[in-house]
């Protein structure tokens, strides 16, 4: 067999016409941008919902003018009803976890840059790739329908615990059709994510350019690869769970619904089902999902840190192995979401140990990032600001995991704002910081234009400080036993602390508003930004060896050959203090 195929080989023909170019495109770059756009829509929707929730929480009787237009029953005369608060809570969680934290760092950036970074022309299965985006879009559309149906969105939270989510109408408003739409939407989303993960894995395994050994892949490629392996298992389990849930709701089966339940004065016609079964299936997906959200950001941040430090991390191998072990351990810890849910107390202990153990690779990562900063030449751009902000955020949010990992403390802290603060910081904001960093970093490559640095830095400072103002107090409130998922605090116990909630609401409004700076920056720079060269950040990985924006077939008819790992910084290269992965030149250590 001959070495490499010499004649130009194209996975698909150059796109022709508007629909193929921009809508049903097979080009991984267009698909990546489509994912990003969807995530952008979802994240602003979700943020808007959180505004409404926080306002209602601290001023329950406040008339929010125009809200009655959004839902007549949900907000009669503009005053939000308790069930509508829960509807918004459910939609906020679902949108953020599935359509933002899974789509933006993983599907969007992964689609756009994974093939380029391994020197491939496109994904292994471009048609699957297109399908997986449009299926995701369908899932989003189905979920959004819940807002317009008279029944309104479901009120059972993004975890949709059974039997509340399984018995239908008698569970309350939104649980008749809203919850069904939720189940259908998530089932569709699972299929989309499975297709995507399959594509990522096959691409990484088989479409790497000559010389691109696994260990020469950039860290973000590694993160996307590991993430897709996690996603493959996780969504393969959530899908059956959703199917069974839908059957319980509409086919009269009793997978998750036990007998003898009386809801709304009606004896429910079910028997024998197990609510814990749903919790196990859901969290078997749900916990890995946390790492699906955070791992890509870890990769992106590492990639950007190396570039802005102008020196490699202390050890890329260790980072890769840490991410692997996190991915592996993430499948042994789901039970820590169920310490007080009637699981065998012994299994609570067996779940708590791997949960505590997972902090070891996490700590290794943090120490590597920190230690690598020592003796570096750190350049602070909007991108690297967010990358470093990620470290701070990851530490702050991750540390509270110490508490929740212990069943004995979970007895007290479970179901309080301590949990809310914890996961918002570590999986929500931290991985969004990764997305922001990625956006500022790769925008020049994706559009051929820089984003505005001044606005970018302003955006960072408000977001960074605002985040701490919103989520740090949640830990304190958790410590005094402030229960989560309450539409308002009617009990006198909480009244002395309402002022803090009010402050957090104000902080949330300001921080949220700052995100419009980002939106403006993206849109403005897309058209009016300063034009960017091929490799504006002097970065070593392959995506910077092709024009910005890249042509439809990435490398044209060129077949990149990789000579180095992507960590060649602080060396004497022909173009500066770095050597590109695909440049054949010898590495000469810079004299120091």
């Amino acid at each position, binding site marked *: 067999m001959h070495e490499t195929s010499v004649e130009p080989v194209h996975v698909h023909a150059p796109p022709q016409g508007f629909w193929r170019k921009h809508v049903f495109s097979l080009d991984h770059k267009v698909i990546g941008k489509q994912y990003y756009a969807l995530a952008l829509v979802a994240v602003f929707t979700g943020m808007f919902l959180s505004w409404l929730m926080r306002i209602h929480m601290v001023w*329950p*009787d406040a008339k929010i003018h125009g809200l009655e237009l959004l839902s007549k029953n949900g907000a*009669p005369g503009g*005053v939000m009803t*308790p069930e509508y608060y829960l509807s918004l809570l459910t939609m906020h969680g679902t949108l953020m976890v599935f359509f933002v934290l899974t789509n933006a760092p993983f599907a969007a950036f992964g689609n756009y840059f994974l093939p380029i970074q391994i020197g491939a022309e496109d994904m292994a299965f471009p048609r699957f790739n297109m399908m997986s985006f449009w299926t995701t879009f369908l899932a989003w559309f189905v979920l959004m329908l819940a807002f317009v149906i008279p029944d309104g969105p479901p009120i059972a939270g993004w975890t949709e615990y059974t039997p509340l989510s399984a018995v239908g109408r008698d569970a309350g408003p939104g649980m008749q059709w809203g919850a069904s739409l939720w189940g259908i939407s998530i089932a569709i989303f699972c299929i989309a994510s499975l297709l995507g993960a399959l594509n990522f894995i096959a691409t990484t395994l088989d479409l790497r350019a000559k010389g691109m050994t696994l260990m020469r892949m950039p860290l973000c490629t590694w993160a996307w690869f590991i993430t897709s392996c996690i996603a493959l298992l996780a969504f393969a389990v959530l899908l059956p769970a959703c199917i069974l849930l839908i059957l319980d709701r509409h086919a009269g089966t009793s997978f998750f619904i036990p007998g003898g339940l009386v809801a*709304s*004065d*009606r004896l429910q016609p079910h028997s024998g089902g197990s609510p814990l079964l749903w919790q196990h299936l859901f969290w078997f997906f749900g916990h890995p999902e946390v790492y699906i959200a955070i791992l890509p950001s870890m990769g992106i941040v590492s990639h950007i840190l190396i570039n802005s430090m102008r020196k490699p991390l202390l050890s890329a191998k260790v980072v890769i192995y840490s991410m692997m072990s996190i991915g592996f351990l993430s499948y042994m810890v789901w039970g820590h979401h169920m310490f007080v849910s009637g699981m065998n107390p012994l299994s609570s202990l067996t779940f708590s140990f791997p949960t505590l153990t997972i902090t070891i690779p996490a700590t290794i990562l943090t120490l590597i990032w920190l230690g690598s900063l020592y003796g570096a030449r750190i350049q602070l751009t909007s991108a690297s600001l967010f990358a470093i902000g990620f470290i701070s955020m990851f530490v702050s949010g991750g540390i509270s995991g110490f508490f929740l990992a212990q069943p004995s403390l979970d007895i007290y802290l479970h179901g309080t704002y301590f949990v809310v603060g914890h996961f918002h910081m570590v999986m929500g904001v931290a991985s969004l910081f990764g997305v922001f960093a990625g956006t500022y970093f790769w925008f020049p490559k994706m559009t051929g234009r820089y984003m505005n640095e001044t606005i970018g830095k302003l955006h960072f400072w408000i977001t960074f400080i605002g985040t701490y103002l919103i989520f740090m107090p949640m830990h304190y409130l958790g410590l005094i036993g402030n229960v989560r998922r309450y539409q308002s605090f*009617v009990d006198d116990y909480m009244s002395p602390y309402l002022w803090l909630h009010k402050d957090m609401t104000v902080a949330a409004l300001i921080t949220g508003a700052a995100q419009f700076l980002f939106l403006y920056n993206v849109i403005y720079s897309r058209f009016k930004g300063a034009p960017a060269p091929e490799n504006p950040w002097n970065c070593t990985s392959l995506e910077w060896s092709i024009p910005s924006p890249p042509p439809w077939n990435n490398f044209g008819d060129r077949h990149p050959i990789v000579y180095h790992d992507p960590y060649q910084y602080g060396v004497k290269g022909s173009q500066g203090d770095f050597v590109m992965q695909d440049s054949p030149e010898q590495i000469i250590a810079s004299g120091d």
Partner: protein
Amino acid sequence: MQMKPAVITGFALLAASAVALAGPSGGTVTGKVTYEGTPAKMKPIDMSKEPSCAKMYTTPPMAETVVTGASNSLENVVVYVSAGIPDDAAPSTAATFTQKGCRYIPHLLAFQVNQELKIINDDQTSHNIHPLPKINREWNKSQPPGTPPIVEKYDKPEFIPVKCNVHPWMHGTFAVLKNSHYAVTGDGGSFSLANLPPGKYTITAWHESYGDQSQDVTISGTESKTITFVFKAKPY
């Protein structure tokens, strides 16, 4: 049968004129609803979960499923003409159902098909109104304090249990009736159905836990008849 419509319109006119004149035209059926046996002992309602309501009572209010009065009289019984009279158009006035002190006032609200039903929240806490009809359309709405009244209609006659999903003890009844000839027994268990044009009627009495009873009466001219209903009370 050709003349039936004519007869009906005739009755309708009579009824209408009766209402219009508001005078004692037509006959009257008066009477009393009582029980025999020992009714279930009503327990006091424990509102400790809702202090804002609990503090409105010096002694906790009693459950209202069976409300009895002096000499075995039975309250909250709907007495209505179930047959022998044509359906009436719904009156323009709305029937009002108030939530006060985490109880329904009245406990049993009788109104007509397609009559406007107005639900008011007088409490400082958020209520939820969830009527559980079998033939009418079901809805389930919350009503935070300070929100406008909920206005609904029912287009089929039915006795509908009403509950508040937030406060388990709050239970009431909507009696949706076909015509305007009905009464709800109050203190003393007495009732009176006036303005009944001459004819043969079936009078029915309905109680939420004792079911219903019917009697036939024939009214000629403006005479007034007296009938009594006696329900069997069970201790449990």
